[in-house]
């Protein structure tokens, strides 16, 4: 039911008291889910607000569907906005909040009611329509904020840390909901977050920002496999991130298969999912280990990266797993590139998202 537009940002500079954006250039395709990833205070919110027309850029242009909207006021841009803490109108009911934008369009009462009902069903909040925002849980409030933004069928949806204020369980649910909504509506979306896994799970592409600049743009895979700078590498961290198919296994475990390797995992999810394993959760040994760890693979060391007191050892099974050990362990075990070793990790150490 929504439209979808392309976004081009050309040489954008914004100067505000606390935040500055410097020379931002971005091309976002129609229907794309683009994630802006960066630390707190990197100017992510200012960037979204500038695209929405709430700040006037110092220099540069914003194009929506090829048309320059740099001087168009926010109310005529057709851009939906969702804030981290929802920003629901406290004096209006849930229905009043969702209908806010429709009523401004001088739509008939009946049409307004129908559209509100349709979007509420899509977001499973149709039972909340008569409640006041203050009485809702965080997850419910965020669904209302999404409904309010989507019901006017924006060209572009801007999400400012939409999941950060939620507890972990609600966050996972709403994250899947965002993916589902994007599939169903196809609205071009720019989603701002500081959470790397959230970015990987949702983004078609990721733009990493730091100190008001875009430092790298690429697919999630590119960002964590080939970080373009020291900052990106440090912000993303060294991780083992995979994408694979999850299906039911035996003994209550589920099995994630990737590159022909079957990994035991603990999760309720099935289908194409991401998995991450922290390097410090992987044990490396020269002999096959008898331990409680469900996952044990043989592989060959392809890289040893010395980081002072700790050492990152990459073992190709394939896929490549990176583990972290102390320098002392490295010396005691006499590890070197090309050596055949065993790695082991618990099924519960695999985070599925």
């Amino acid at each position, binding site marked *: 039911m929504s439209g979808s537009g392309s976004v081009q940002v050309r040489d954008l500079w914004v100067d505000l008291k606390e935040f500055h954006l410097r020379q931002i250039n971005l091309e976002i395709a129609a229907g794309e889910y683009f994630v802006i990833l960066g630390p707190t205070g990197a100017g992510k919110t200012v960037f979204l607000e500038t695209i929405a027309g*709430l700040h006037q850029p110092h220099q540069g242009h914003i194009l929506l569907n090829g048309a320059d909207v740099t001087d168009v*006021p926010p*109310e005529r841009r057709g*851009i939906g*906005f969702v804030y981290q803490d929802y*920003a629901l109108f*406290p004096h209006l009911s849930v229905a009043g909040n969702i209908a806010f*934008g429709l009523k401004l369009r001088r739509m008939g009462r009946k049409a307004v009611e129908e559209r509100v009902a349709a979007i509420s069903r899509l977001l499973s909040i149709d039972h909340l329509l008569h409640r006041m925002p203050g009485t809702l849980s965080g997850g419910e409030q965020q669904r209302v904020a999404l409904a*309010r933004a989507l019901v006017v069928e924006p060209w572009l949806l801007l999400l400012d840390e939409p999941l950060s204020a939620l507890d972990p369980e609600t966050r996972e649910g709403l994250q899947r909901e965002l993916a589902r909504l994007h599939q169903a509506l196809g609205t071009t979306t720019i989603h701002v977050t500081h959470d790397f896994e959230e970015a990987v799970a949702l983004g078609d592409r990721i733009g990493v920002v730091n100190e008001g600049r875009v430092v790298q743009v690429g697919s999630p895979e590119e960002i964590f496999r080939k970080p373009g700078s020291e900052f990106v590498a440090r912000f993303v961290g060294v991780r083992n991130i995979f994408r694979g198919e999850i299906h039911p296994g035996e003994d209550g475990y589920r099995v994630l298969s990737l590159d022909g390797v079957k990994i035991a995992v603990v999760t309720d999810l099935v289908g194409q999912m991401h998995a991450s394993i922290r390097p410090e959760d992987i044990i490396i040994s020269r002999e096959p280990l008898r331990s409680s760890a469900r996952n044990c693979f043989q592989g060959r060391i392809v890289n040893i990266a010395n980081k002072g007191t700790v050492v990152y050892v990459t073992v190709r099974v394939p896929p490549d797993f990176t583990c972290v050990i102390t320098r002392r362990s490295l010396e005691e075990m006499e590890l070197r590139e090309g050596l055949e070793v065993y790695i082991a990790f618990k099924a519960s150490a695999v985070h599925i998202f």
Partner: protein
Amino acid sequence: MKPLFADKMRTIFAILGSLLILFIAWPLLRTVTASSPVLLWQTLLDEEVRDSILLTFYASLVATGLAFICGVPLAYLLARLDFPGKWLIEGIIDVPIVVPHSAAGIALLMVFGRRALLGRAFGLLGVKFVSATPGIVAAMLFVSLSFLVNAAREGFEAVDPRLERVARTLGASPWRTFWRVSFPLAWRSILSGAIMMWARGLSEFGAVVILAYHPMVAPVLLYERFESFGLRYARPVATLMILICLAVFVALRMVAGRKGARG
């Protein structure tokens, strides 16, 4: 909550505080109880008294209305904008609270007097300030607008600017955003400020008496009766004024109380 008299210090504080409360309540209570209801009723039937009370209400209402029209926009700007010299504007708003009100009356006379520039300009339009209702309105406006502007500003400051931003992205122009989001959310503060201002206007004596002794507002009438005929004649009028202002004040507290309950 801990009991009031939990320790010695609190007991002493409570005694000291009660002295002040007594100081306010006793004279008021004495005045109110000194006149019999029959006497009050007769006073109310006195045309001069009735006219002056109605004039007081009316003039203060007009002053509040004027402050509302110009003061709410000003309050909004002060709540939302940062600009060089803002402290000066905020200071000017508060000045009427600190200057002696008779001095305020003199100051107004310098501008709205018969021979002053604005006085003459309005004179050409047939509007007279000295010894006329517009003068009373001007005096009340001057001494009480701070209450409305400050309350409205606090009300707008409590409205999250992001609510306004969301409204803009949903298609609302700046005007509509103001009327549909900012104003309704600040309304209770604005209303309580307006009631406060109106009540303050009702009780104004110093500035009014210098601009317009006649027509007489209630506080001036009260003063005149006291000066000419003494306490016995002034008292029923005083009682009436106190009762009316108390009623207004109770209404104000109810409005403010409901605001607290909502937040």
